[in-house]
């Protein structure tokens, strides 16, 4: 039923003459927040009713917990996250010199675990990586996104942009077909947003839990009947980087609520 509606909508889109993949002008950019109803907005606005804050609180506990054979906590090196992590998530994915490629915030946390805490990396989308990542990103709430400014990232931003414009899957849709050309229209009753990733990791009512931008990208790919890239795949990181650079200047909202 859902699938058929999605296909029907896709056929409608396919009938529209190919629009130029128009970039959204900076002053016309809108957070997913602006597409939500008043009740969902209220859930995000009040920290004592925002379920994403439960994860932030758990992340704070983990931040202070010693782990790995180095028996160190995040706080042992980074101190008070309120100052040391302020603005950090706003510039991720960031270039890693040793790897000579961009890494996501989740990957950075895991690099810290392996290199400095001598601990095993946390699995993608596990509760622990999400809570840590939410706690770190929450320190940037209200801060303008700066991702992609590092010139070493340029080829990766470009790779992400190409992926964003590339049609894929059985429905033969690119990200841009929905999120640049048709935002504000509806797909199976839900508004299509501009895909501005301002609040990740975020609490999706659909998921009933916190999830990463990669999880969201993967479900979009499943939605257009494409084979989703694996978590941590260079393509997903490049897409994440492009999307964050596309949202440059917009304020972070972590932990956001989305339907």
């Amino acid at each position: 039923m859902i699938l058929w509606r999605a296909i029907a909508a896709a056929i409608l889109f396919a009938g529209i003459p190919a629009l130029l993949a128009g970039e959204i002008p900076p002053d016309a950019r809108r957070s997913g927040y602006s597409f939500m109803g008043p009740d969902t907005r209220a859930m995000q606005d009040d920290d004592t009713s925002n379920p994403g804050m439960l994860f932030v609180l758990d992340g704070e506990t983990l931040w202070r917990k010693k782990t790995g054979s180095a028996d160190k906590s995040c706080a042992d090196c980074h101190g008070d996250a309120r100052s040391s992590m302020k603005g950090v998530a706003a510039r991720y994915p960031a270039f890693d010199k040793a790897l000579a490629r961009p890494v996501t915030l989740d990957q950075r946390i895991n690099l810290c675990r392996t290199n400095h805490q001598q601990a095993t990396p946390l699995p993608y989308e596990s509760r622990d990586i999400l809570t840590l990542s939410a706690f770190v990103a929450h320190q940037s709430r209200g801060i303008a996104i700066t991702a992609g400014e590092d010139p070493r990232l340029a080829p990766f931003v470009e790779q992400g942009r190409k992926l964003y414009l590339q049609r894929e899957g059985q429905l033969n849709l690119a990200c841009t077909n929905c999120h640049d050309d048709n935002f504000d229209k509806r797909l199976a009753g839900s508004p299509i947003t501009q895909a501005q990733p301002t609040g990740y990791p975020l609490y999706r009512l659909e998921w009933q839990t916190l999830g990463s931008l990669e999880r969201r990208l993967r479900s979009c790919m499943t939605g257009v009947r494409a084979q989703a890239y694996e978590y941590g795949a260079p393509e997903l990181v490049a897409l994440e980087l492009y999307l964050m650079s596309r949202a440059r200047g917009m304020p972070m909202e972590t932990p956001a609520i989305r339907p």
Partner: protein
Amino acid sequence: MAALINVPAKAKRGDIIEIRTLTSHIMETGFRHTVEGALVPRDIITSFTCRYNGTEIFRADLFPAIAANPYLSFFTIAKESGKFEFEWTGDNGYSTTASASITVE
């Protein structure tokens, strides 16, 4: 795992105050199946109680239709300074508590 409790720190005697609680729990309904077809067993919070200086002032029975990470808001009259104690119990021996204090003037 975390719980978020919102009780005003101070109130005037006789004030009607709102208490809000949010707690981490998946609230697995027991009606879902895995991709392989196996039933995911029910795992929910079934009961919530709030006591004000030892006296029960609010209680709730929860069912699988309550969303994950249960949120509850209710009211009480601020009568005296003291402590609110919250208790959630559920399937598989689940039990967790939290508390918050209030100064009533």
